[in-house]
């Protein structure tokens, strides 16, 4: 990476005549990746707020969801239907089935974020493997894989997911992850491929070849660490997108099965006109949650992207 080398501060302060300076003393070090990221966050107040908010939300969701018994989000209690915010201990009120909306929100967020995370992991793992292979070997391998991806990307994936969801008989959270995962690796493959193309032309790859390392070893031990920055940025940004895909499907009724709360199903309460107009407290919190999470992730992703690309840096 083209980080500006800085003379270590401790050295810069000490005046030395040229004779005194010997090779071991001069420590030229580039700022570490972590330092660069922190500096970029300092330059961008909005992203810093977004990061703090995200961390708080993720921790709350992850921890609290463990303490919510399943009955709280599945049991129907008509007596408590559509309670207003703050009545009888329901901070955010209750929905049509009389379930506490705050607990629903936490449980839904946990499911939605978990699915988005799993899809991101699937997409990154396959994207990295295919991108590595296609970029490193090039030639006929590259042509075949890239044409498959070209074909795959023109497919209307939302339609196909809906069809697959309808025809799969035994259907749960993992099948949904698998089906969405089928369409999550193409973009990453392209990105990794382009970076591997430029990396594998560098001399350290040739040096590894003459050092007797096998192709697999070179790809995953030598080249992969050099891709870490774009992998971090890409997974952050695709994570935000994957939350959107899952909630869209749930909203349409093709996402998580009944009984598994999701942010999308919570928002779909708004398809009832009376709820949409006069009982906004039922669906607004979930919508706001999604907006805050995705926009926040985008801000953080932008900062990471700037930190890893010296030309875009602010600080």
């Amino acid at each position, binding site marked *: *990476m083209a*980080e500006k*080398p800085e003379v270590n501060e401790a050295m810069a302060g000490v005046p030395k005549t040229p004779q005194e300076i010997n*090779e*071991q003393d001069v*420590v*030229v*070090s*580039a700022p570490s990746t972590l330092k660069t990221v922190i500096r970029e966050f300092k330059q961008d107040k909005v992203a810093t707020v977004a990061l703090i908010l995200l961390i708080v939300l993720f921790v709350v969701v992850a921890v609290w969801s463990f303490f919510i018994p399943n009955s709280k989000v599945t049991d129907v209690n008509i007596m408590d239907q559509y309670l207003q915010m703050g009545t009888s201990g329901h901070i955010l009120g209750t929905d049509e089935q009389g379930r506490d909306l705050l607990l629903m929100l936490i449980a839904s967020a946990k499911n939605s974020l978990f699915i988005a995370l799993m899809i991101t992991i699937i997409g990154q793992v396959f994207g990295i493997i295919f991108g590595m292979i296609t970029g490193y070997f090039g030639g006929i391998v590259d042509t075949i894989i890239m044409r498959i991806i070209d074909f795959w990307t023109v497919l209307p994936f939302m339609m196909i997911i809906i069809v697959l969801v309808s025809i799969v008989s035994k259907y749960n959270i993992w099948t949904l992850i698998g089906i969405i995962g089928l369409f999550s690796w193409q973009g990453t493959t392209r990105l990794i491929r382009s970076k591997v193309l430029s990396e594998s032309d*560098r*001399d*350290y790859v*040739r*040096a*590894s*070849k*003459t*050092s*007797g*390392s096998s192709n697999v070893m070179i790809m995953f031990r*030598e080249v992969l*660490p*050099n891709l*870490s920055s774009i992998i971090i940025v890409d997974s952050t940004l695709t994570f935000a997108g994957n939350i959107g895909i899952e909630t869209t499907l749930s909203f349409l009724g093709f996402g998580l099965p009944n009984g598994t709360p999701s942010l999308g199903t919570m928002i779909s309460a708004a398809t009832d006109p009376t709820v949409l107009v006069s009982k906004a407290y039922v669906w607004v919190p979930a919508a706001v949650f999604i907006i805050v999470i995705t926009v926040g992730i985008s801000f953080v992703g932008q900062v990471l992207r700037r930190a890893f690309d010296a030309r875009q840096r602010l600080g």
Partner: protein
Amino acid sequence: MSVLIEIKDLKVHYPIRSGFWNRVTDHVYAADGVSFEIEAGKTYGLVGESGSGKSTIGKAIVGLEKVTSGQILYKGQDVSKASVRRHMKYNKDVQMIFQDSLSSLNPKKTIYEIIAEPIRNFENLDKSAEKQRIIELLEIVGLSSNAMYQYPHQFSGGQRQRIGIARAISTNPKLIIADEPVSALDLSIQAQVLNFMKKIQRELGISFLFISHDLGVVRHMTENIAIMHLGRFVELGTREDIYNNPQHIYTKRLLSAIPQIDIANRDANKAQRAAIEAQYQAERQNFYDADGLAYPMHKITASHWVSTPPTEKGATK
């Protein structure tokens, strides 16, 4: 002296693709029928202008470039095939030093991991022996053992090139291909690295194939020199043959291009260079065939080979 590697009629051609169907329409003749031998413990220089194919030959020998035809014989086996190379652990004996010291070291690896890579692949050392070997290698190249835990960007160009050398000698190779190892370094560091390579060569008895366009450096470093032009050898001989008795017109032209700091005779030198250039332009067609390529070489003394037209076999003087 025993022959270490024998290169027979080596050809490396790159296809040029063009047209609607992206078919192969022509080839770039990067190396076109090159033959020579490398003897154990000797230094060889490979000189030529940019694009003459000298790096291609170096890469072909070390196994980084696919050979179109011809043979590279090592211990009686043709090592131009990857399977043969892997089988006989060829790269344990033949290593390479790269031009760009920064890009030849993985930026995300410590010096320890970089130097340990060939050792782990070719030699079975346990952890402590491996560490001992790396400290020893760093000592040989004049770096302190602290360097092990640092990253490539923390070193200067000269130090990085020495780390590259340490990696190249880590498996006790018999031949090192040095592809313009000092052309990215400034002059004071060049001298340091070159003397260093010379010292290592003497102490460890390694053969060097020194690829460079810098005739001064080659004269300093090598005993035998090959001059390349347009993918073919035009002259091959000992250092004395080439520098004191150049036969091929391209060699003469190349030698006259060495800058001289000789202010008193500046005009005389300039006139001589102009004369050689005029001679080159005038006699060009005598030394190159109809396609503008050099003729095959002929022996004129025991050590001296020159590319001359077939009709004038051994007659040029």
